[in-house]
């Protein structure tokens, strides 16, 4: 039996680790992560910035990158990586997590940093994720030499909107980092667990029939989840009933929008900022935003911004500016959280040219429109309670605006589930909740039922007479029903596929977050907008020695492991089984 439950929030911009001793009276603690803060200087911080810097050969004084557990690390990770990356962005890997779910590039290939000059050894998004996870593991073992990481119960959170391939890549990164078999948990659920952990009386705050909306605004992603409260044999039960689509839009985008606006104002005074000065401006705008958007009425009308001179002339080169409350309100509240009607829809995603490799950022920054769409797709859901999470909500006016918009859609205002320790929790709740869930798995706590948050399909070409120049239309066969729970499996004996031995067979793979009632085996004649194509999946059947067989008839089987991983298998009539793998290599051509 493991001694600790360890929850890891592998974030787009910051990672965190929380832990709890498994036992009767367990409480969750935040782990302070040792990392380089400056050359030669180690500090233990609450967060590990998810940044990786590839140092040049003579860039730092010899030995100044040493970690307590490694004399010559190949990369700089964490706070110092982020700092140095401001001065030398071409060697900085950031937002690696967002690349794991990228449809247009293979996350196992060395892609990052995108703009690295010739000669800089690039790393893959997968490798970067592994480096962050490995750093957390080694920092843990350095602080707790008596409790080896592999012996603990480890949970890693992912956005609820991560598809099966992105979840599997996260698991693979953990495997490469020398983790034990990890459990994957969705971030909004983890945020909700953190709330439960803070409120032992939670059963008095929610009731059967309630519907809880979790809005998790991370640094780089925004995630929506609905959890319904039901009753079974007198016990309250929680079930995750819907998750939103992948939305690459988070708190960092909001801070950046304010900083870009401020930069424009400096530009009007003919002041051009370099990368370091802009970074300083960005930090100042982040802090100014929190002051200007504080919920109390006494928030000041503006905040000063100071850009110090470069070079040794500090006072002489100092440029002053300011940013007003009205500007920030316009930029953030009206830009990202506009007041919209319940039937608002975000602007359609532009189709990105296949030759362009980059992140697929949300094309409409209006979070409230995405929220309206999410609730509409979830069957016009009307939540009764709301839990908000994410560092950007430290600006009270944003929280206020979300409620204002949401309540205008509802008959009765939604209640806020507030954490007792709100300020600090906004940045740490996900890791805390994951550690708490680990306890629940060992019998000390409540679990949210949920299962797979999507319906999955394989593509089947119709056997229509070929029309020259037109590909045969695709149909979609349901293979995984929405909500398939951990530890269960689904077989499709009625449909056989003939696979040729010795050649990789490929299936096109689709999913939907909104079609919740397609039963396994159900065939969709026409693939509509509510279904998106994922990376293809493939399987290779090795030839059996001495056997003349050329073609093997197989049926499909799906199961969801206890750790929440989706697996697809081909099963032959004689019982032989082959696992289908996500073919991330083919994504670029998808």
């Amino acid at each position, binding site marked *: 039996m493991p001694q600790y439950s360890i929850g890891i929030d592998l974030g787009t911009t910051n990672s965190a680790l929380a832990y709890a001793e498994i036992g009767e009276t367990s409480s969750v603690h935040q782990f302070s992560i040792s990392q380089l803060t*400056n050359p030669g200087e180690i500090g233990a911080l609450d967060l590990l910035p998810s940044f990786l810097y590839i140092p040049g050969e003579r860039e730092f004084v010899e*030995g*100044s990158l040493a970690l307590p557990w490694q004399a010559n690390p190949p990369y700089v990770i964490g706070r110092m990586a982020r700092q140095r990356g401001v001065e030398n962005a071409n060697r900085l890997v950031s937002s690696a997590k967002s690349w794991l779910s990228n449809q247009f590039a293979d996350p196992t290939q060395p892609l990052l940093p995108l703009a690295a000059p010739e000669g800089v050894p690039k790393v893959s998004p997968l490798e970067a994720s592994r480096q962050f996870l490995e750093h957390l593991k080694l920092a843990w073992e350095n602080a707790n030499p008596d409790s080896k990481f592999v012996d603990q119960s480890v949970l890693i959170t992912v956005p609820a909107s991560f598809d099966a391939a992105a979840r599997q890549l996260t698991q693979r990164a953990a495997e490469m980092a020398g983790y034990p078999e990890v459990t994957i948990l969705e971030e909004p659920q983890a945020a909700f667990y953190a709330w439960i952990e803070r409120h032992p009386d939670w059963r008095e705050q929610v009731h059967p029939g309630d519907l809880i909306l979790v809005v998790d605004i991370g640094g780089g992603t925004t995630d929506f989840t609905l959890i319904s409260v039901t009753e079974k044999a007198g016990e309250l039960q929680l079930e995750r009933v819907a998750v939103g689509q992948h939305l690459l839009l988070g708190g960092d985008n909001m801070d950046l929008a304010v900083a870009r606006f401020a930069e424009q104002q400096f530009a009007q005074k003919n002041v051009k900022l370099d990368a370091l000065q802009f970074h300083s401006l960005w930090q100042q705008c982040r802090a100014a935003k929190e002051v200007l958007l504080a919920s109390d009425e006494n928030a000041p009308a503006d905040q000063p911004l100071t850009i*110090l001179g470069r070079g040794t002339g500090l006072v*002489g080169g*100092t440029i002053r500016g300011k940013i007003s409350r009205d500007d920030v309100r316009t930029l953030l509240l009206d830009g990202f959280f506009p007041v919209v009607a319940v039937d608002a829809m975000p602007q359609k995603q532009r189709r990105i040219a296949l030759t362009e490799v980059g992140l697929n950022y949300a094309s409409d920054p209006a979070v409230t429109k995405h929220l309206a769409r999410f609730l509409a797709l979830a069957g016009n859901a009307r939540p009764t309670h709301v839990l908000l999470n994410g560092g950007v909500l430290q600006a009270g006016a944003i929280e206020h605006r979300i409620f204002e918009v949401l309540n205008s859609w509802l008959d009765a205002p939604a209640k806020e589930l507030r954490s007792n320790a709100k300020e600090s929790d906004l940045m740490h709740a996900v890791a805390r909740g994951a550690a708490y869930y680990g306890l629940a798995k060992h019998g000390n706590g409540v679990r949210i039922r949920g299962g797979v948050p999507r319906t999955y399909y394989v593509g089947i070409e119709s056997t229509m007479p070929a029309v020259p120049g037109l590909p045969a239309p695709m149909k979609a066969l349901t293979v995984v029903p929405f909500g398939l729970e951990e530890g269960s499996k689904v077989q499709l004996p009625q449909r056989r596929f003939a696979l040729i031995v010795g050649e990789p067979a490929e299936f096109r793979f689709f999913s939907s977050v909104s079609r919740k009632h397609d039963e396994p085996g159900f065939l969709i004649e026409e693939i509509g907008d509510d279904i998106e194509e994922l990376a293809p999946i493939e399987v290779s059947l090795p030839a059996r020695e001495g056997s003349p067989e050329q073609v093997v008839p197989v049926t499909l089987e799906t199961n969801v492991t206890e750790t929440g991983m989706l697996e697809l298998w081909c099963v032959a009539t004689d019982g032989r089984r082959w696992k289908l793998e996500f073919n991330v290599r083919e994504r670029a051509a998808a």
Partner: protein
Amino acid sequence: MSRISSAFRSFFAILFSGTLPEDIAVEFGYAKPAPPPVAPEPPKIKPADGALQMLQILQRDSRLIDFLMEDIASYSDDQIGAAVRSLHADCRASLTRHVTLEAMLDGVEGTYQKLDSSKAPDPNRVKLIGNVPASGKVPGGTLRHRGWSASSVNLPPLGKQDPTAISPAEIEVD
């Protein structure tokens, strides 16, 4: 070693080269054996290194040296104020991270502060000013300044960093 061969070798060595062969000199106590090779000593930490390192840190985190070395006579108070406000926050954060500072006497400035009148106070901790009796023993007085004491200093190991390099020059490559 036979005594005859040693005697001969010594005789001829002194006759032709003026010194005893090394092995014989050691054997008969005329010379000390060469010390076994020792590992090169780690670089000595000189007393000034910690001070230089502190300057390095304050410059890096808050650009304090830039500020102190700049001629600010011609700038307006507004301009200086804007720069200092930003520098002050960084400098203070950096200083408190590496040095724990406490008041020498935890009293309210401007009010009466009792002292131990049985002996003159430790001059490291208390400086008496004004109408001080010859014995230096006083029951107390008005606290004019609480004083400062560094209760702990926490500087990272220097390693191979050159402590005199307060701040490297920066070259931006286009």
